[in-house]
């Protein structure tokens, strides 16, 4: 777990994680908090499906339903899917490029804590007078009319966690540009690193429009500005533009890392070099660019006019081309490979038809005249769940199995993993396939109930059954995690036996400095190359063994984020007018944040040095542990 295998108390471990700047530990923090929010969002999903189980159900009231629906979408996108992907990016991307940490370890920690406090703030709305209820898209006319503080929790919470995402994105960009090991040229970077890179570029360019939109929203709601208020000369459609200028790139921020994970899996478990590596890289970059030129396909029915609709319809259809290229490359990677159907590979194979189905409905929706029929119906719900669950969530589950040994040093059970897969996969198709037809039959999305005479009963009931299947799958995964952790059978460097990239050449989990010596990269799939040439160490080195400079832990990121969290409460309640404590709270919160920024700026923190002797001792310890493992039982797959 930590740098040296000393036994430490529980409190010390917590403190270590709160102050850590180690990308591998921050990854674990992202995984745990993202996983927690995934469960919260999952419970909300179950509530939605229970309410829609039969006609005229009164399990949730209309108002509560709107809150649950809004929080489900918001939580899943911002607090579950993105952070869990950040977990893998943090944990794996620096290892894949042969780096000792990310470029800005302090900022990495700050990014996490901002996300965390933003997420907690948003979810506290449940206990403080009601959650946001205007949908995850938060369209302005609806949001401005919403009573209570729900929407304010949404805008302030997402502002804070949005800063976190932006910081994380910038950090990955700088890391990948500057910290690649010698020989790791751009065209030798593993695809997961490539997709991390492009997704980070999308974060950099897509989050500012969201921030601007949310700022306008905050000003409208809290300070009586009129950006979106039509009666006061504002324009409510502008919010939709801001939201979707961010929103469409956002879906690619989610799917690109998922593509990256699957690309790794296909190559590893087909024991073959990725087919068409170059095409995959350029398709990724192209998708990144196009992703910014299609946002208005979410607004075909707002009356943009035929010219705008035609332009955006065409642009949207073009984006399906690079995506299709990727699908074919994966298929050709599998073709002729020596395939082993491990749990990650099963997910990857299942992903192809599921995601393709989502892509096909996407292109259907891109046909503007047809979208007049489909828009705001359950067909849309089916589409985006096919791409998000069939793409992103399957990738998250696959990645959890694939990278669990690298992150925690133990191997999730393959048997339970297969059970999870089948429950989840069958449940997923059961839930969402039928929603296409519900949509075509006219069922609108975002309604809290429907009538018995509308003929939607059976399909909705089936959909709810499917949701329970998925829930069972997730519960089995949790059991798997607990059992694996309790058993604690340690594994070696390359537990899958067929690792190709640098992360598999070092121990699982890696020592805190990752690489005792910076590796020298001689081609695509460097670890595979060394293995094939019989190099037992799995790497050749670009430098002699020497002292290493590492960053110190820091408590400041936590405090800085906490300040924002406190200040948000002040901002939120200040405009009630009757709460004298609100303004002081706002000021104290900002004081904490700026104070910790000052401390950070004035106090020199030069990090610490790991000496050559300590390195040698630690490497020997690692070797002893490996030998002990070999002597007992060979951990890992085979």
């Amino acid at each position, binding site marked *: 777990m930590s740098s040296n295998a000393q036994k430490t108390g529980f409190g010390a471990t917590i403190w270590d994680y709160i102050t850590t700047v180690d990308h591998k530990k921050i990854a674990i923090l992202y995984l745990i908090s993202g996983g927690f929010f995934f469960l919260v969002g999952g419970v909300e999903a179950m509530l939605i499906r229970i309410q829609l189980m039969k006609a005229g159900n009164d399990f949730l009231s209309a108002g509560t339903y709107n809150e649950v629906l809004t929080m489900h979408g918001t939580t899943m996108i911002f607090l579950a899917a993105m952070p869990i992907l950040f977990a893998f990016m943090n944990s794996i991307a620096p290892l894949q490029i042969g780096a000792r940490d990310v470029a800005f370890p302090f900022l990495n920690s700050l990014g996490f804590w901002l996300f965390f406090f933003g997420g907690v703030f948003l979810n506290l709305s449940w206990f403080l007078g009601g959650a946001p209820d205007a949908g995850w898209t938060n369209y302005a006319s609806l949001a401005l009319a919403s009573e209570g503080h729900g929407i304010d929790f949404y805008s302030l919470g997402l502002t804070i966690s949005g800063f976190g995402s932006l910081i994380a994105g910038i950090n990955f960009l700088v890391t990948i*540009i500057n910290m690649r090991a010698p020989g790791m040229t751009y065209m030798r970077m593993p695809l997961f690193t490539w997709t991390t890179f492009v997704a980070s*570029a999308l974060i*950099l*360019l897509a989050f500012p*429009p969201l921030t601007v939109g949310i700022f306008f929203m905050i000003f409208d709601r809290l300070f009586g500005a009129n950006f979106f208020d039509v009666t006061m000369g504002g*324009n409510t*459609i*502008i919010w939709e*533009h801001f939201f979707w*200028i961010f929103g469409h790139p956002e879906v690619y921020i989610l799917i690109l890392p998922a593509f990256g994970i699957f690309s790794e899996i296909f190559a590893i478990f087909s024991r073959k070099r990725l087919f068409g590596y170059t095409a995959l890289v350029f398709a990724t970059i192209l998708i990144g*660019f196009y992703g*910014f*030129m299609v946002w*208005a396909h979410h607004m075909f029915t707002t009356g*943009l*006019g035929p010219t*705008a609709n035609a332009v955006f319809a065409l642009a949207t259809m073009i984006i399906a081309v690079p995506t299709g290229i990727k699908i074919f490359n994966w298929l050709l990677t599998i073709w002729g490979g020596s395939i082993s159907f491990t749990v990650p590979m099963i997910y990857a194979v299942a992903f192809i038809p599921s995601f393709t189905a989502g892509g096909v409905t996407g292109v259907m929706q891109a046909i503007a005249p047809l979208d007049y029929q489909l828009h705001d119906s359950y067909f849309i719900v089916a589409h985006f769940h096919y791409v998000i669950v069939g793409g992103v969530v399957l990738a998250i589950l696959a990645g959890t199995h694939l990278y669990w040994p690298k992150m925690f040093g133990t191997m999730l059970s393959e048997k339970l993993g297969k059970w999870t897969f089948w429950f989840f996969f069958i449940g997923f198709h059961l839930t969402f396939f039928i929603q296409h037809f519900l949509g075509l039959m006219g069922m609108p999305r975002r309604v809290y109930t429907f009538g018995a005479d509308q003929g939607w009963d059976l399909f909705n009931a089936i959909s709810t059954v499917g949701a329970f299947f998925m829930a069972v799958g997730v519960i089995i995964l949790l059991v798997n995690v607990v059992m694996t952790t309790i058993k604690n059978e340690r594994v070696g460097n390359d537990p899958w036996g067929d690792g190709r990239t640098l992360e598999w050449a070092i121990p699982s989990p890696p020592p805190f400095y990752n690489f005792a010596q910076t590796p020298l990269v001689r081609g695509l799939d460097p670890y595979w190359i060394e293995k094939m040439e019989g190099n037992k160490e799995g790497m050749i080195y670009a430098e002699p063994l020497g002292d290493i400079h590492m960053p110190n832990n820091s408590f400041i990121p936590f405090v800085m984020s906490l300040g924002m969290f406190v200040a948000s409460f002040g901002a939120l309640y200040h405009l009630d007018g009757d709460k004298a404590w609100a303004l002081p709270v706002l000021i104290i919160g900002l004081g904490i944040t700026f104070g910790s920024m000052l401390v950070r700026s004035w106090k020199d923190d030069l990090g610490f040095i790991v000496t050559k002797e300590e390195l040698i001792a630690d490497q020997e310890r690692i070797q002893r542990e490996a030998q002990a493992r070999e002597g007992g039982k060979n951990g890992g797959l085979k």
Partner: protein
Amino acid sequence: MAHDTHDIHRSRAEYEFVKRKRATEMRGQLTSFAIMIFLTLIAFTLVAAEFSPYLIVPILLLLAAIQVVLQLYHFMHMGNKGHGMMAFFMFSGMFIAFLTVLAMVTIVWW
């Protein structure tokens, strides 16, 4: 960059090379400074001569764009080695931002 305050020991050849390079760079900066002044003069003249705004506005925007590029390359060293990725990101960012603003403005206000 070139603002060394402490001693660096260079060989004669290196010294000559750096000197020549600085001289070219200096010439580049002076030239672009002259061009920039000239462009500014054009801009002022255009406005002072009270041409139609439909002529003035696009020309001013164009001149501004040229100024930005000159500034970036001659004064902020974007042409120097190792700045390729930065240039790529800046120009993609500008390109995307331009398209977005253009599309949004045309859709919303025309």
